[in-house]
């Protein structure tokens, strides 16, 4: 069948089940009850502190076929996922589902666990590196479920992703299970992606290398939801967890794009008191924040909040009074960690609060503007951030589709040519984010506005911005780089791409060898 944006997907996918097709960004409504884990009790005097992961596995007990969940706040410095899965392998446990909010190169040992049958299912919002490459080549029988950050929170809360045990890597914890992300050598700042896991998992285990005297303060994840605490030697490598400082790009093309994106925001009349904003930490996205900041300073504007992944750049804007609050689901650098640990206006929010479509209101709904990237965008403004030009998985939505759906104005910034390839195509290989939620594409050679936003187009034209039809930009890129050959894939579905509401927006098929 074809879903509402014309992607060809089966009605039923082996090892996944019946497919509910994507029907539009806001057209599929919830009909379920919230997930309710079993009620627990603990007697006074009982201890939660356990010597080893192995012992925790036995106490719970962890058995074949369970779903183990993890957060990705330690990014490429994470040590906990590998440690837990090594324990599972040692104990001969098979057939686990790993629900890890993002998979990084450091998680390469997963490949052996998959080969040995320890892990047979993956559920994630982003994957890059060896595991993503192995998945693309068809290493798994079950397709990986690729979700959005908000969609994962929704799936957990709605009982569609049932977690048996949440192993929460904890930069700091006390012996009664209170956890925060701002102390210890592995301090990562916000622990927002672990909040739904802690709320809805049957069992919750804090894994820490920094055990403090009870009670810990501040508390991000409370003792009331944590069953066990395990002290290990090291939860991860701080060098891979947060970067020292996040710098604005010096690439002149990236800066040109960022400058244009900031002008788009200004032309849309959004640089005014109460402005709310989200942007990524990379290249042109962060540089856009730099130009937006200059405009805010010039006009003396005080913004309401900045949302999402937080960098030192945003912290500086908070401290200079350019935003009244930061809402932080994930910190990217040491400054973000320092600030969230000390500034009451720097709020830690969970993935559900940030972006889940199925609750009584998430933060992306309050955004004026979000700046997003793209590996490909098509003439219908559908965006791919999952697969690269070779068809191999190299990313995932993360919060992309969530923020795009929520913000008043969603801007995609991208180089018209990525290396030698045009960024605009007739049909993206994989749709992550539907075109109906993308308003503007900004490139170094012009700006394209979604035909659904004629109002915005008129505003940009009036401001003298270089507005072009997206087909015109595509032709411009093809004139320089030629038309790339379309990619052929095998038939096997290696991943299903869930939209934030749980419908299937697309599938990823195995790449040719």
């Amino acid at each position, binding site marked *: 069948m074809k879903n509402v944006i014309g992607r060809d997907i089966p009605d039923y996918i082996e090892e996944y089940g019946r497919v509910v097709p994507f029907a539009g960004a806001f057209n599929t409504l919830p009909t379920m009850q919230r997930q309710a884990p079993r009620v627990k009790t603990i007697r006074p005097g009982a201890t939660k502190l356990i010597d080893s992961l192995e012992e925790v596995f036995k106490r719970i007990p962890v058995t074949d076929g369970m779903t183990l969940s993890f957060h990705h706040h330690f990014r490429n410095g994470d040590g906990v996922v590998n440690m837990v899965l090594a324990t599972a392998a040692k104990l001969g446990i098979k057939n686990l589902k790993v629900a890890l909010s993002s998979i990084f190169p450091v998680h390469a040992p997963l490949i052996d666990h998959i080969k040995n049958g320890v892990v047979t299912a993956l559920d994630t919002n982003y994957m890059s590196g060896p595991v993503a490459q192995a998945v693309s080549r068809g290493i798994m029988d079950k397709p990986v479920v690729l979700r959005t950050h908000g969609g994962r929170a929704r799936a957990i809360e709605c009982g569609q992703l049932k977690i048996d045990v949440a192993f929460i890597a904890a930069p700091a914890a006390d012996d009664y299970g209170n956890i925060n992300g701002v102390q210890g050598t592995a301090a990562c700042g916000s622990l927002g992606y672990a909040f739904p896991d802690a709320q809805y998992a049957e069992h919750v285990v804090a894994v820490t290398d920094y055990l403090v005297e009870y009670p810990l303060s501040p508390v991000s994840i409370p003792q009331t939801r944590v069953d066990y605490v395990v002290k290990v030697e090291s939860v991860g490598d701080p060098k891979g967890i947060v970067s020292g400082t996040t710098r604005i790009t*010096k690439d*002149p*093309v990236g*800066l*040109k794009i960022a*400058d244009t994106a900031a002008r788009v925001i200004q032309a849309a009349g959004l640089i005014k008191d109460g402005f709310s904003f989200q942007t990524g930490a990379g290249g042109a996205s962060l540089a856009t924040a730099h130009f937006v900041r200059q405009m805010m300073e010039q006009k003396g504007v005080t913004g309401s909040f900045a949302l999402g992944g937080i960098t030192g750049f945003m912290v500086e804007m908070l401290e200079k009074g350019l935003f009244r609050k930061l809402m932080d689901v994930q910190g990217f650098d040491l400054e973000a960690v320092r600030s969230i640990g000390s500034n009451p206006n720097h709020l830690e929010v969970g993935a559900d609060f940030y972006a889940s479509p199925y609750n009584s209101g998430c933060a992306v709904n309050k955004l004026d503007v979000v700046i997003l990237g793209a590996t490909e965008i098509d003439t219908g403004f559908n965006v791919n951030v999952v697969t690269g030009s070779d068809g191999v998985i190299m990313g995932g939505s993360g919060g992309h589709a969530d923020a795009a759906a929520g913000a008043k104005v969603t801007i995609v910034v991208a180089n018209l*040519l990525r290396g030698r390839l045009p960024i605009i195509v007739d049909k993206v290989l994989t749709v992550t984010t539907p075109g109906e939620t993308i308003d503007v594409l900004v490139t*170094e*050679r012009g700006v394209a506005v979604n035909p659904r936003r004629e109002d915005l187009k008129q505003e940009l034209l009036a401001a003298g911005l270089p507005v072009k039809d997206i087909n015109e930009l595509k032709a411009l890129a093809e*004139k*320089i780089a030629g038309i790339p050959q379309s990619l052929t894939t095998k038939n096997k579905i290696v991943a299903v791409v869930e939209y934030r509401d749980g419908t299937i927006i697309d599938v990823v098929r195995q790449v040719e060898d």
Partner: protein
Amino acid sequence: MDLRRTMLFIPGNNPSMLQNGGVFGADSVILDVEDAVAPGEKDAARLLVAHALRNVDYGRSETVVRINTLDTFGKEDIRAIVPCEPDLLLIPKVETCADIKEALSLVIEAEQPGQKPVNLVALLETPRGIAEAYNIAQADKRVVAIALGAEDYTAALGANRTKAGTEIFTARTIVVNAAAAAGIQSIDTPFTDANDEEGLLEDTIVAKQLGFKGKLSINPRQIDVIHSVFNPTAHDIDWAEQVIEAIRRAEAEGSGVASLNGKMVDAPVVNRAERILHLARMLGMVKEAE
């Protein structure tokens, strides 16, 4: 009058920059096969630049190629580049009128039948070049501008290069005056610290004050700052319009003398006002003259 507020250097051996050179809004892009390119890479860069000229759309940026000096690789550069129809060649280390004449004869020889004539900009970057500035500026009608290259010049003087630029004050005024005397444009030396936006602004203000019509640029990030200095301000435009209005009124009244706010409006004032309005019109800052 051609607009050359910014002439942006693009390394001739960098395919990505060559491809993107047109997106930054510089009035001219200078595809550089001289200083940006090591001797061993001259052939490759020359080929790249030739292809870029034939295939890349530089939008509204004028295309300029800085060739090597004629005693090194310059002759080969001219033979390969001129048929690709750049708008201009930037000739480095020009010291005499004869240098220009030699380069020009090679250019004319290399031009294909029917092609648009390739004009020249002379880069003056030696004490001799500065001393000969006027002769160079009026050497041929194909010379449309002279530019100052202060780094080599101060090295030859044995003077330290400073941000204040007192060591190049004389050279700057000579270049501006020589160009004005020959009726062509003068282009200032680049500001070489791409990270110092304040310094660039101050340096450009000085250049404009001395009479330069534009500035060489070594980084796309410098363009907006330089343009902001060379662009007429709203105040300038307002004043210029009042001057022109005063002249009209005087003519209508049959009076030989116009005045604005008690000051006499004479020919130089009118010229200045007309230049401002012309620039403003080119930049779309005012509507076309009624």
